[in-house]
């Protein structure tokens, strides 16, 4: 197990290093510098600014400085937004993103599991078809289309929620629902397939032969076996939420990282864009790692092949 974790950590560092290097050289090639914002500066002032950003040094020196900065959590300084350090910009905005993303993940997964279980237990019945339709719609309809529908119906027409406002807990409701729909549908589809398999397995027959009631079989034997593999789709689901958050935050005016990213794109603020990209990459890779380790922990079969015994 320890060797496995070490190997995975190694891969993770290699991946992050590649992304960081890629983004550094892309940034070097892209037009734009801190000077764009301050066009009216004199030559001397420009030189001072460049010196301040360390842009007069040779590229390898900058590269090393960039990497050491990254290790210490320094993502550089924004060209725009009052030249604030990117790390600080992102720190200020991580709260709302994390809140909505987490809510969406939890609600989406729980409802999705429930939907998938219902569908499997009533295999080929009315409830199964209903939840299959919900799942197909949920995986197909892009979250921003869904967000538009929610916004129009519940905010514009019914006026139950503000159209786009941030601050109160109820402001998180519509964006959470919009974001939750994809993980919900993913989980529902996945659990349904798994559960149908599990319900048809021999050990469920053994349990029936023991005289266990259907509810008892589904709960004690089926649930756990169907749930364990769900861990494997948590990674893709998290990525979905990250992708979705960029547009959802934009649509509902949530002061989060996704919204920051889109506004940075509009003003060509490369350090912020790169910083955000790196943050996304980091978050994704860490989530995948945690998920894999978690999988090993909750599935007794993997625990042993991991080398514990």
């Amino acid at each position, binding site marked *: 197990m320890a060797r496995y974790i070490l190997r995975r950590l190694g891969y993770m560092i290699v991946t992050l290093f590649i992304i960081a290097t890629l983004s550094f050289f892309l940034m070097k090639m892209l037009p734009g510098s801190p000077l764009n914002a301050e066009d009216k500066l004199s030559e001397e002032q420009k030189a001072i600014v460049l010196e301040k950003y360390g842009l007069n040094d040779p590229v390898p020196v900058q590269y090393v400085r960039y990497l050491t900065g990254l290790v210490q959590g320094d993502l550089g300084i924004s060209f725009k937004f009052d030249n604030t350090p990117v790390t600080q910009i992102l720190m200020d905005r991580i709260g709302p993103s994390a809140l909505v993303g987490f809510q969406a993940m939890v609600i989406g997964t729980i409802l999705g599991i429930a939907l998938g279980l219902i569908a499997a237990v009533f295999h080929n019945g009315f409830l199964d078809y209903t939840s299959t339709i919900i799942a197909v719609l949920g995986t197909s309809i892009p979250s921003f289309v869904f967000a538009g529908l929610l916004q129009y119906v519940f905010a514009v027409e019914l006026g139950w929620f503000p159209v786009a406002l941030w601050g109160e807990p109820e402001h998180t409701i519509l964006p959470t629902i919009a974001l939750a729909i994809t993980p919900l549908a993913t989980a529902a589809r996945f659990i349904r397939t798994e559960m149908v398999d599990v319900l048809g397995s021999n050990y469920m027959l*053994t349990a029936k032969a023991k005289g266990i009631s259907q509810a008892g079989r589904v709960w004690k034997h089926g649930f756990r076996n169907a749930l364990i593999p769900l861990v494997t789709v948590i990674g893709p689901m998290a990525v979905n939420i990250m992708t979705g958050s960029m547009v959802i935050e934009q649509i509902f005016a949530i002061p989060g990282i996704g919204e920051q990213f889109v506004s940075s794109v509009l003003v060509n603020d490369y350090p912020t864009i790169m910083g955000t990209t790196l943050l996304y990459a980091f978050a994704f890779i860490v989530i995948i790692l945690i998920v894999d380790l978690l999988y090993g922990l909750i599935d007794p079969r993997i625990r042993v092949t991991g080398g514990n015994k």
Partner: protein
Amino acid sequence: MSKLLEVKDLRVSFNTYNGEVQAVRGVSFDLNEGETLAIVGESGSGKSVTSSTLMGLLPKPAGVIKSGQILFQGEDLVKKSEKEMQKIRGKEISMVFQDPLSSLNPTMKIGNQIIEGLIKHQGMNRAEAKKKAIELLDQVGIPHPEIRVNQYPHQFSGGMRQRVVIAIALACNPKILIADEPTTALDVTIQAQILELMKEIQRDTKTSIIFITHDLGVVANVADRVAVMYAGKIVEIGTVDDVFYNPKHPYTWGLLGSMPTLDAEDEELYTIPGTPPDMLNPPKGDAFAPRNEFALEIDAVMEPPMFKVSDTHYAATWLLHKNAPKIEMPESVRRRIEGFAKTGKKGGE
């Protein structure tokens, strides 16, 4: 010996996309207390369907009991509700399945899988049940049961897993144990151990066993009585001696003749030509007739009834009718049976 289980004219069908598959077509037999009845037949003969019908484990909604009675201690199991069956399954009748690899829940400790039934049927608390589980593991010959009880199925070998499955089935001292090809998925050496274990269990607990198998060698080893099934029907039933030394049905002749033994030296094995019939539209008359070299004209018209050979021995073949021509079993089969008698061994024992 008193009758524990009486099966009367049981008919089971599966409704499939292509139509109705008649898996079991009128099976009747009795099971006495403390005896082992073997049901033998090739795949598709309906032997496994019969056994899962006894347990009420037919896959719903495809599997349907068309008619018949399953009288267990005088009560008809066919008429019982699912709820009532839950009280019988595992407690009165329990089952050992073919594939020990997949019949245990991979994410549940062995102990918990044994305990489940004990808590449900015997009203034990967890501590008592766990103690009993350890005893059971010990009884089925698993070393270090107190450690093993906390392990997961993948930590056991195939043979060990089958022992665990047997322990689960025995947990509540059932009156009937149905073993559905319990040794088929195992290595030959392990097979012998499991058979030995089942014999031991029967000696100790006096449980009646219904042993489903396609392997005649295994039958001779464990059974008191044998029922031979073909195309959803019992074609011959009798004590082991009846069926092995005095077989009457041509299908039984075929089965005995096609069994390889160590004694049969450079002798050719007898083969049964053709394949089993399509149970979607079973043939008119005797289902075995198309493969039977001794078939009579009447076989194509009418199904043979059970003819009595002796008090314990019945066979469904027109050859036993008083008007039928005298037909003896093929020479190779006869020599095979004489071989059994000489060595006092039956089949692959």
